[in-house]
């Protein structure tokens, strides 16, 4: 026999003392009464995984007790949760790493879920990194695909690495819980089922504000700052270097306006100062999943691709018929974006106004 070194892969069998860890949890990201949609996407995904394993889906909702928080607990059931762990304390009103970490560490150690999922958002990544350290367990960041290896009932978390040039599947074998963060809009939004209900486990951690060193002085909401809300747009018209010069971005904005969509750009355009970082789509920018993504003058580098390839329909416009974007776009149009974009704006405008007259 070889030494009992690190177990590898599917042949690994879970030690007896870790078998009491059961169920799949999603930590619901709630700030100021609104839930980040990634949390419901994850409840939907957890439902699929839990059905494979034959276990329950738990949703953990943390915050100060309020009617909004109760509504969120109800929503968790409609999206697929079986149990809601409702953790309430005035100290949890605003997200802060330290009290959230302490509370989550205790709740996980008490109820012992086998898998804990969070959104790969600023909150989720901040919290997951801290909890995985206190729990001394494995955490896989920014996953794009989750699956269960039934041989040993372990989570197989797949994520892009080296800027998306490679994918790797990562497992946490001899530790529990298995943790992962998942990018928003990678998993599809589950349908609501308003008839679903479940049980609520209330947790009162009894925290003291005096024990928390970090204080929230104020919160400056984005809507007051006029930033692009790219992640939630149904239609995105995106521009790449093929547009030539910053003035030509107007063509993209015109088309987006006719379609009621948002404008996205590739990283080089942000670096060249054409527009702000809030419009960047891709590995270091936002991941988007609109119903329609029109890519104008974008070659389709992997760093951009990972941020938009899950779009329902991708139309690529590029002068180079061999551009990599045509390998993963659904519709391709070989031509100069500078002439095609205004023509598209006209064509959509006409098509949509014809209907208004007819209607």
């Amino acid at each position, binding site marked *: 026999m070889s030494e009992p*070194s*690190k*177990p*590898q892969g599917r042949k690994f069998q879970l030690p007896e003392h870790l078998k009491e860890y059961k169920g799949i949890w999603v930590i619901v*990201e709630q700030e*100021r009464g609104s839930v980040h949609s990634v949390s419901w996407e994850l409840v939907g995904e957890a439902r699929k995984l839990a059905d494979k394993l034959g276990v329950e889906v738990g949703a953990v909702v943390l915050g100060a007790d309020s009617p909004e928080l109760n509504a969120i607990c109800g929503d968790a059931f409609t999206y697929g949760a079986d149990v809601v762990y409702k953790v309430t304390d005035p100290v949890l009103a*605003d997200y802060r790493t*330290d009290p959230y970490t302490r509370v989550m560490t205790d709740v996980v150690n008490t109820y012992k879920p086998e898998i804990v999922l969070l959104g790969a958002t*600023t909150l989720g*990544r901040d919290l*997951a*990194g*801290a909890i*995985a350290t206190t729990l001394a367990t*494995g955490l896989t*960041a920014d996953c794009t695909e989750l699956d269960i290896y039934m041989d040993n009932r372990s989570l197989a978390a*797949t994520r892009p690495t*080296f*800027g998306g*040039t*490679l994918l*790797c*599947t990562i*497992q946490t074998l*001899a*530790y529990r819980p298995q943790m992962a963060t998942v990018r928003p809009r990678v998993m599809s939004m589950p349908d609501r089922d308003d008839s679903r209900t479940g049980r609520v486990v209330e947790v009162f951690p009894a925290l003291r504000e005096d024990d928390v*060193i*970090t*204080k*929230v*002085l104020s*919160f*400056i909401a*984005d809507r*007051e*700052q006029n930033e692009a809300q790219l992640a939630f747009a149904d239609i995105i018209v995106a521009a790449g270097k093929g547009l030539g010069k910053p003035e030509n971005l107007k063509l993209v904005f015109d088309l987006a306006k006719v379609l009621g969509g948002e404008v996205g750009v590739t990283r080089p355009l942000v670096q060249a100062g054409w527009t702000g970082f809030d419009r960047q789509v891709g*590995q270091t920018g936002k991941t988007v999943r609109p*119903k*329609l993504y029109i890519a104008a003058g974008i070659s389709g580098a992997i*760093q951009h691709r990972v941020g938009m390839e899950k779009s*329902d329909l991708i*139309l690529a416009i590029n002068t180079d018929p061999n551009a990599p974007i*045509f*390998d*993963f*776009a*659904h*519709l391709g149009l*070989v*031509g*100069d974006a500078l002439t095609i974009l205004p*023509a*598209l704006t*006209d*064509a*959509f405008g006409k*098509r*949509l*106004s014809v209907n*208004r007259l007819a209607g």
Partner: protein
Amino acid sequence: MHIVVCIKQVPDSAQIRIHPVTNTIMRQGVPAIINPFDLFSLEEALRIKDKVGARVTVLTMGPPMAETSLRKALSLGADDAVLLTDRKFAGSDTLATSYALTSAIKKLSEEEQVDLVFCGKQTVDGDTAQVGPGIATRLGFQQLTYITKIESIDQGAREIVVHRRSEGGVQVLKTALPCMITMLEGTNTIRFGKMDDMFRAARYGLKTWNKDTTGAEETKVGLKGSPTVVSKVFVPKPRAQKATMVEAEAPTAEAPSAEAMAAAAVEAIFGAQPKLADELLARAAAGL
């Protein structure tokens, strides 16, 4: 004030190519750089040094060749540099990496108490954003990630006020030193090095530490200390079908006009997504 900036030497991800036959990363000839996200944190540390006075120590864990990145950081104005290198660290995941780096920061703190640790928001090769929070948790430092601005820092009162990016907006946080900070990208621009610092960087005697120097336990580093296992590495599957090309009739042998192409594209989009067409038409009909 003593500030430690953790940096990582990474391959320039923009220049990585996959070998078309073997499906492996072709590292040859890919230049090594300081992880771009680390530079925002290094610059912020240097600004604090300029403003209130501080000793800035850069720390990296990696193979001996990571010395290049440390010297680069020194040339930009860091005072000291530590290379944490040991074959036993090979294969460390984020939990083991944060453990090893923490052991080095604790040792640095014995020389001069560390008040601030800066890390990059994430790396461009691993992309995990987990090592910073891991270090903060292990040291018991206040954790401040995705910081867009350091509004004030009061050495006497040991207080710091920062702006932190969150999903719906910006949190203004006040907390006490010691803290671990990761800066959001685009919040500052890394300076050019001064001539004096470049000369100093070239001559500087790097501190090279290993597992035993920092007292790191062997079971907590490397593969042994890493809960995660990479079970498969593969190249993303290309979509089975390439894009359907939009084509349009042209009256003569010339290329079809932009108008004809656009009209064909609109029909193709609405044909592929009838639901989307309905929504857009409904919205247009409602005069929105």
